[in-house]
């Protein structure tokens, strides 16, 4: 394969070029309620070429080998057009030339398990909620995505890496009269089919939660002191903070760039945030990014002070900051962009019980259910919550959405727990989907959270 890619690369007249060819194999099995609505395996492939020429950079994506010349020509022309319109030429940070092959060690290779065995496992999980009368429907999907990547650059790098991602995820819908409640269920990871085995208890628990929500009262909108569980705090770390640690997001926002200057104190003393794609066996693991750069753990915040940032080669040169290896594509249909790998709020020493005592009266809110940010403002749904009275968890409440301002919330974090959990299923859509986007946290105590009630 590298010979074929080199032949295309050799035809490109530019200062720098790279090509990534990928074969993507996926298996999808979906149940909607009792019914199996999708099952199949597919194999697709395609190419992404990137060109740096005269200080302009451009990419072209193509799926037919016969389109290679046209794609290369377009990329070179567009790079020149960009170069003509830029005041400052684009440079790429220097990186080590890498020749390596990395194939992950899996606990059960999903390719060796028949699709019928996978089907039976998903059916078994799907049947768990459906055994209950008040469960109206389910939507449960098994998804397996294998990216076999070949990366080659004019600098001499040649990298072959496989990414194997498996998951069982979906929604359980409970219904009572006209009231409907959805609960998300998820399992999966990057190190083999074993990550989706033995999930019966998980499905039982999520079913029980959906049924309990039917009996819960809607939360009363207002301002509360809250404990966020690991999933919700992880989504905060990712959505509200993490995206502004991505250099390409703030690069062209001058005031954001000013606010996010390394050394600025942005959060309370108790908060430490890191992005580390190199932690083995986690959903967010990878060895090299899609620019052929080795992934580095990157401390983003230490004791509330901004200490680092996630970069591509282009932004690392632009910001004059160290390269981090965070430029990742969804698959062969996209040029890479800066993505978080495994971002989390680092654990501290407090037990959950201690946090409850510190909270006194307020809300304990759990599990993200959709989230979005716009600048420094964010809105997240929570799966459910509990009223906390005098440090004791009391009645369940539903229909919780929180909204807030990133910087105010970072300063309103009062305490961090000792119980780090990382997410098992990812889905960050920043123009392209990143199914390995991994985030986490320990429980955190936050004051003055705006809750929108129904």
């Amino acid at each position: 394969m590298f010979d074929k890619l080199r032949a295309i690369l050799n035809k490109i007249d530019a200062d720098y070029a790279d090509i990534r060819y990928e074969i993507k194999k996926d298996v999808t099995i979906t149940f909607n309620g009792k019914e199996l609505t999708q099952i199949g395996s597919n194999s697709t492939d395609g190419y992404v070429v990137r060109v740096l020429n005269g200080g302009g950079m451009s990419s072209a994506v193509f799926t037919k080998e016969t389109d290679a010349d046209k794609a290369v020509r377009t990329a070179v022309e567009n790079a020149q057009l960009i170069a003509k319109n830029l005041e400052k030429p684009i440079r790429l940070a220097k990186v080590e030339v890498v020749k390596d092959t990395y194939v992950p060690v899996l606990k059960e290779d999903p390719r060796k398990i028949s699709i019928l065995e996978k089907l039976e496992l998903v059916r078994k999980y799907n049947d768990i909620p459906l055994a209950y009368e008040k469960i109206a429907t389910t939507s449960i999907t098994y998804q397996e995505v294998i990216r076999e990547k070949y990366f080659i650059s004019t600098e001499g790098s040649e990298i072959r890496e496989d990414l194997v991602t498996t998951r069982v995820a979906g929604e359980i819908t409970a219904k009572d009269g006209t009231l409907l409640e959805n609960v998300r269920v998820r399992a999966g990871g990057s190190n083999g089919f074993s990550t989706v085995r033995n999930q019966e208890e998980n499905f039982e628990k999520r079913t029980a939660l959906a049924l309990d929500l039917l009996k819960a009262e809607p939360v009363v909108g207002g301002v509360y002191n809250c404990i966020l569980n690991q999933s919700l705090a992880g989504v905060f770390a990712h959505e509200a903070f993490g995206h502004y640690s991505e250099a390409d997001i703030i690069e062209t926002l001058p005031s954001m760039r000013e606010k996010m200057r390394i050394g600025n104190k942005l959060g309370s003393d108790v908060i430490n945030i890191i992005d580390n794609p190199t932690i083995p066996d986690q959903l967010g693991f990878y060895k090299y990014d899609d620019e052929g750069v080795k992934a580095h753990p990157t401390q983003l915040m230490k004791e509330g002070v901004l200490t680092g940032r996630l970069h591509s080669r282009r932004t690392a040169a632009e910001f004059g900051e160290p390269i981090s290896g965070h430029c990742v594509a969804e698959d062969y249909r996209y040029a890479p962009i800066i993505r978080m790998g495994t971002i989390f709020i680092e654990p501290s020493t407090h037990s959950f019980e201690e946090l409850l005592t510190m909270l006194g009266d307020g809300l304990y809110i759990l599990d993200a259910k959709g989230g979005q940010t716009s600048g420094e403002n964010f809105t997240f749904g929570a799966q459910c919550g509990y009223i906390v009275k005098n440090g004791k968890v009391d009645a369940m409440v539903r229909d919780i959405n929180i909204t807030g301002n990133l910087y105010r919330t970072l300063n309103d974090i009062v305490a961090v727990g000792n119980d780090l959990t990382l997410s098992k299923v990812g889905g960050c859509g920043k123009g392209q989907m990143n199914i390995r986007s991994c985030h986490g946290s320990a429980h955190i105590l936050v004051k003055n959270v705006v809750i929108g009630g129904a």
Partner: protein
Amino acid sequence: MEKLLEKAKKVCDKAELYSNEYIYNPVSFKNARLHDIDSTIQSGISLRIIKEGKLGFAYTRNLANREELLQNALDSLKGGVEANYTFPLTKKIPQLNTYEPSLKKLSGREMVEECARVCDYLKSKTDGVILLTAFSYIENIRIINSEGTDISGKNTLYSIYGAIKYPGSGTGIWRVSKSKQFERMHDSIIKEMIELYTSSSKVVPPKSGKMKVLFMPNSMLALNWRISSGTSSKSIYEKISPITDKIGKKIFDEKVTIYDDPLNDTYPGARAFDDEGVACKPLTIIENGILKGFYYDLNYAEKLNAKPTGHGYRTTRWGGDSTTLKPVPTLTHMRIKPGNKSLAELVKLIDTGIIVEGALGAHSGNIPNGDYSVGISPGFYVENSEIVGRVKDAMVAGNIYETFKHVIGISDTLYPCFWGWLPAILFDNVTVATK
């Protein structure tokens, strides 16, 4: 494709091939400077086969290996996905004017010049951070099936998105224009953006409680998503729609008429047939507040003993790579009938209230139930019919089946929105929560 269809017909009862080829050329400006020019040339073919009432599905990028594609589809038959429908024989389709050949010649340089023109103007009138993306998109779709259908369509789309973001915040005013061919962004749109931006530069603390709320077209996604969830045949079949038994009943204010308008080719993206070859036609969903009907693809029409309405599209809520997706019921050309008030007149009707210019978290919350709870980003606070400033840290929440009973007025213009062209709507009695 014909060879593959012949092969497929030999080993199963029914077969269908869907092919999609497109060229997508985006240009983007960030902070009023050219940032990216990229290009995608992509093709794909997907195969559906039916054998003994079971469905097989597979797709590929190239027809390099027909046997592998057919084998993948045959393998997926083993799962036993039910398919009791048949593929349609569609011979006559409406002739639509969806393709403007001039778009093929539109160069990156011309898009760069247009973006630069809009950028310079917005920059000269505001202190905001300017973002722009223009793109050309040319698509060819062809569907052939074992019943004898062989139809194809070509679409062109030119779109430009412009945003003025408030300094120090990622939020701002944005507008999108869509057309079949290259068009300069209209001055009226640019002026509206500048006016809204200028009148909202001051941040004010709003009151909370129930009040009048104007959903602008950009925030209508929070509401129309729930409408399309409630009226989808998939939700009806799965018994998760709260309006299953409400056909013929008044569920919304009588000012509200909602329909699907796929054949109107004055808008870009009109379709003569859906992604499974069913001929498209207009469909009324809600007329003067009365629920008229649901929308169906082949699969759910068969399950619910109804006629397919031509709403089987290979997509997800966020769009998607059509080749890799099976058709699902989708309301792709949604319109809400415009009212008789200009935006300015609607604002005049607000004594105290909020204008929701953009909604954060439209996809969060209990969508099937019709509940919404969205961050206002950005939004404006109105007192005595005047915008007094921009609100921060506030949310609006409610349930569409309640909210749409309290319509005060609907704007006289439709705007391009995600999944359709929609007006701005002023509602009464919507809950606003603030810090």
